[in-house]
């Protein structure tokens, strides 16, 4: 789960990590008042769940409260299009109004889980303020990685390693160590999947400050974090993805026209790859999950049918825990409730109760092309494109 920058900064403050003074505003008037309180010269930042806001025109340094109000008015209610959002952009409903800072140096700091060392790793760089992927590609020597032992937490020597590694003055050893240690405590306490400060700045007067912050949380741990769930902003997500999440269906919207419904993430990706090999593009990734029942299948199928971009459908069910007859019934029910299906449907079914499943489909009012394996599915999709 993602949250907004202003929300992330509030959490950072709770863990004693210094952030600029400021507040979130949902109206131009509010923005004006916050700017006035901060002395007029402020930064106004659009709050969206996407990076690249600066380049997209979503961030501006202004010199007066009036200017803050005007810029806020120009952002609110609009869709901001960044390199991470796709052409439709995401809606701006709030801005963050913050004091402007005199910056000496910009650093990068993040904590995430490394699947190779099987634990948390701190990533830091003296080249902050830019896209870290580009730093990694161009000058990998500028990226430091420090593994944290979950039993020990962040140790003083690791703080020194990071401070000197980023080419900072010895006076900063203590502040950097404290800050990293606090960020690690936050990471663990809130079950983060990513805690990123970019840039972490050293101000002209020698203080450390988190100028921007991104916190992502482990969805699987949300059950023990009611306080985080309240921070969710579904306006930032695709409506079909929000709908799918309600039913615990793994769904990611893509740009193609072949709606894919599959059980299992690996098989879903294999089905999408097969679609692509056949010369078509998948409209989505959809995994109904292991223990899907008739109702869940039916919901999943409705989600695919609700996507106006879908021109053909490929269903691939390998019956195991999920029986093919159950899947077939779910499909037929959804089609009835949606008033029929106008696009061609290719169905591949295998495994438990496959005979019954195929019979339910072929005796229904649905027009389906039943195939036996992935190879035939590819051919059928090719034929449907014409």
């Amino acid at each position, binding site marked *: 789960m993602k949250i907004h920058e202003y929300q992330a900064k509030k959490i950072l403050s709770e863990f004693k990590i210094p952030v600029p003074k400021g507040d979130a505003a949902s109206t131009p008037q509010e923005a004006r008042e916050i700017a006035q309180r901060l002395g007029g010269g402020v930064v106004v930042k659009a709050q969206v769940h996407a990076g690249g806001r600066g380049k997209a025109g979503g961030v501006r340094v202004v010199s007066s409260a009036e200017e803050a109000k005007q810029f806020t008015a120009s952002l609110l209610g609009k869709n901001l299009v960044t390199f991470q959002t796709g052409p439709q952009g995401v809606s701006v409903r709030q801005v963050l109004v913050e004091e402007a800072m005199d910056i000496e140096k910009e650093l990068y700091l993040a904590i995430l889980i490394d*699947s190779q060392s099987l634990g948390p790793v701190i990533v830091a760089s003296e080249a902050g303020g830019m896209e870290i992927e580009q730093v990694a590609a161009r000058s990998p020597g500028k990226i430091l990685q420090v593994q944290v032992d979950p039993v020990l937490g962040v140790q003083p020597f690791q703080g020194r390693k990071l401070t000197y590694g980023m080419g900072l003055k010895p006076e900063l050893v203590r502040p950097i160590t404290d800050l990293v240690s606090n960020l690690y405590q936050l990471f663990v306490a809130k079950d983060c999947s990513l805690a990123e400060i970019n840039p972490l700045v050293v101000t002209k007067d020698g203080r450390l400050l988190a100028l921007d912050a991104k916190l992502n949380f482990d969805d699987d741990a949300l059950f023990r974090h009611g306080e985080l769930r309240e921070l969710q902003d579904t306006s930032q997500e695709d409506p079909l993805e929000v709908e799918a999440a309600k039913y615990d269906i793994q769904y990611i919207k893509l740009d193609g026209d072949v709606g894919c419904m599959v059980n299992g993430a690996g098989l879903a990706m294999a089905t999408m790859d097969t679609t692509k090999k056949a010369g078509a593009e998948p409209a989505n990734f959809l995994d109904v999950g292991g223990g899907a029942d008739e109702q869940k299948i039916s919901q999943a199928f409705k989600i695919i049918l609700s996507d106006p971009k879908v021109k053909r459908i490929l269903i691939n069910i390998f019956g195991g825990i999920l029986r093919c007859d159950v899947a077939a019934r779910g499909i037929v029910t959804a089609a009835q409730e949606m008033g029929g299906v106008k696009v061609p449907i290719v169905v591949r079914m295998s495994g438990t109760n496959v005979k019954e499943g195929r019979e339910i489909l072929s005796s229904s009012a649905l027009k389906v092309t039943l195939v036996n394996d992935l190879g035939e599915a590819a051919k059928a999709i090719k034929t449907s494109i014409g």
Partner: protein
Amino acid sequence: MSILVDKNTRLLVQGITGREGGFHSQRCMEYGTNIVAGVTPGRGGSLFQERVPVFNSVEQAVKETDANASLIFVPAAFASDAILEAADAGISLIACITEGIPVLDMVKVLRHLKGTPARLIGPNCPGLISPGGRCKVGIMPGDIHIPGRIGVVSRSGTLTYEAVSQLTHEGLGQSTCVGIGGDPLVGSSFVDILKLFQEDDETEAVVLIGEIGGTKEQEAAEYIKREFTKPVISLIVGQSAPPGRRMGHAGAIITGTAGRAEEKSRALAEAGAAIAPSPAEIGITAKKVLASKVSGRGKRG
């Protein structure tokens, strides 16, 4: 022979009285697995299916029944505790089916298991099966498997069934099939399982199914290049997945472009693996590789 599980496996099921645990324990027993005990705290003293004794703790179950492997169906919030309990009781093989365990719980579990002899398969996996020994420790449909000499190791569930059914369709039986799990942090890696297949005389070749994200496939490729002497057939899925959606932004720093499907396929091909040209051609590719091995052109065959 096979790896990890066989006729001598004395299986214990944690969560045997639950809906999923009960359903799959039943299927495992029908397949031929020797389930000697179940564990559900608070339900000790009862019998599962009128013959398998249920205990309150793993320790007690091991003491009474000499169980040597455990299959876990405990809900995600309690699963890491169940894994630790099994390891503490001296169980040497633990397969955890549960999906959705918080990542930081697994960090602690894996750190602890390093100091014990226990081997963990999963979590978020289908488990493992040795068709020749009629031993199924997992949730896979048993009837798609036939005994034979191909080892299968995979990160996914239903895609493993897909691979197995293609192999069976070509008449290629399996020695052992292991689903190592789809989570970023799992107990056993591709390399751990490949090492076992290397030592297993009955395994003649290995099918390795990978997917995007992480660098586990590259680690496997390194190992195959260095030490593995049997033919490998591989498929990496996720070529059509948009970059950056599943891997977090900063996650890409560590793996760079290594998390992409093409990079993984390339590393495995360079290590000598035969890459299946599409998900529909795993069985055919395996057949070709084995045919060329017989005619003397196979890798160190």
